[in-house]
């Protein structure tokens, strides 16, 4: 940016800041700002506007880094992006107004000044948007990972016995995960019996049934036994109506019965012991 413009901004620094503060009053009354203590809101405004003006003196890379560090703090505490973009837009208005009200600038210079100020401000807005969207993408990525882990967990409940509780709709993506997690988990936990609990699956259509059948066949191929538990009565009826034969598949009505069967299959059982055996 031309030194003369920078000089001009610096010489009117206080006036610009004051007018900016007035300007942002117009949109400061929103749900977000009301949720904050007003000193905090005002302090952030002041810090932000000073930072912007200070970056004029810095090298571009240094300025970017400073802005990045500043914004990062606010992204994590949930400040809306609009707080900054609206602030920048107001800043641009104020700056251009202040500058053009000066008699010293001739009309040819006005155009140049406009152009320089615009591209400076646009650069900052773009960076703000980039920092925010980068952080959103990151969050989305982490949430997807978390969902992936949650969507088909295999839990080793006893030695040799694991349970996969399925809750919610099963789509193709999830069906793939079920298969992967089952096979990996069986090896990892050395399971001999796995119980797939479908109590929380709202609809068992032919696709879901097909995936469950395939999964349980694969389980058998790696040397374990698969038991389907938690088939609700209405689901049992629709499966029969669909003409799907689950006759070949071990099923138990509840998870508890399934675990009992799992223990039997691994030559164990749960017994009640009398109180004098406690000693």
């Amino acid at each position, binding site marked *: 940016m031309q030194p003369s413009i920078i000089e001009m901004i610096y010489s009117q620094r206080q006036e610009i800041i004051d007018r900016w503060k007035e300007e942002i009053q117009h949109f400061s009354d929103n749900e977000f700002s009301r949720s904050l203590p007003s000193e905090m809101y005002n302090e952030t405004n002041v810090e932000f506007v000073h930072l912007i003006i200070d970056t004029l003196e810095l090298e571009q890379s240094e300025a970017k880094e400073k802005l990045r560090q500043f914004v990062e703090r606010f992204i994590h505490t949930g400040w809306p992006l609009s707080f900054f973009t609206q602030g920048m837009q107001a800043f641009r208005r104020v700056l251009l107004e202040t500058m053009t009200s000066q008699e010293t600038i001739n009309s040819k210079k006005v155009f140049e000044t406009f152009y320089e100020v615009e591209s400076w401000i646009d650069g900052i807005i773009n960076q703000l948007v980039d920092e925010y969207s980068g952080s959103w993408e990151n969050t989305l990525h982490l949430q997807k990972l978390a969902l992936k882990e949650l969507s088909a967990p295999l839990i080793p409940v006893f030695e040799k016995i694991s349970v996969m509780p399925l809750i919610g*709709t099963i*789509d*193709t993506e999830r069906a793939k995960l079920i298969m992967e997690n089952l096979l990996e988990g069986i090896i990892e936990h050395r399971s001999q019996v796995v119980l797939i609990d479908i109590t929380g699956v*709202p*609809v*068992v*259509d*032919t*696709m879901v*049934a*097909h995936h469950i*059948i395939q999964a349980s066949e694969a389980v058998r191929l790696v040397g374990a036994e698969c038991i389907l538990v938690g088939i609700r*009565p*209405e*689901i049992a*009826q*629709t499966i029969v*109506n*669909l*003409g*799907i034969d689950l006759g070949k598949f071990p099923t138990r009505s509840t998870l508890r019965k399934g675990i009992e069967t799992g223990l039997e299959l691994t030559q164990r059982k749960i017994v009640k012991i009398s109180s004098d055996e406690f000693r």
Partner: protein
Amino acid sequence: MSVQSNVEVRTEWGIVSARQAGRNLAKEIGFSSVDQARITTAISELARNIYLYAEKGEIIIEAVEEIHSTGVKHGIKITAKDKGPGIKNIRQVMEDGFTTSGGLGAGLPGVKRLMDEFDIDSVAGEGTEITTIKWNS
């Protein structure tokens, strides 16, 4: 009572929305939980067929009634419409176990058994329209 809902099916989310809409209306009409499960499953089959074989289409869900000397019969009507490849041999696709996608081939014959009335209208190269009704007894 919400008279009719149209759900566009072009992703797996569309299948879930269609099912949701069907379950809500079935509940409003007063179907038992077993019938609600039947209706939702039938919608799931039809919507998934659209997604798999026609790529996109729509599911229309509406309440219907029929007046008899003994009173009014309430039901739910599901229409699955697409402009996909159509079905050449309708008798074949209604056989248990017939599939062109490596599925169970249980969808269409299953829907027919889950519901009370069932009708396929399909022209090869033009599309498919399947209409099915369940009455609340």
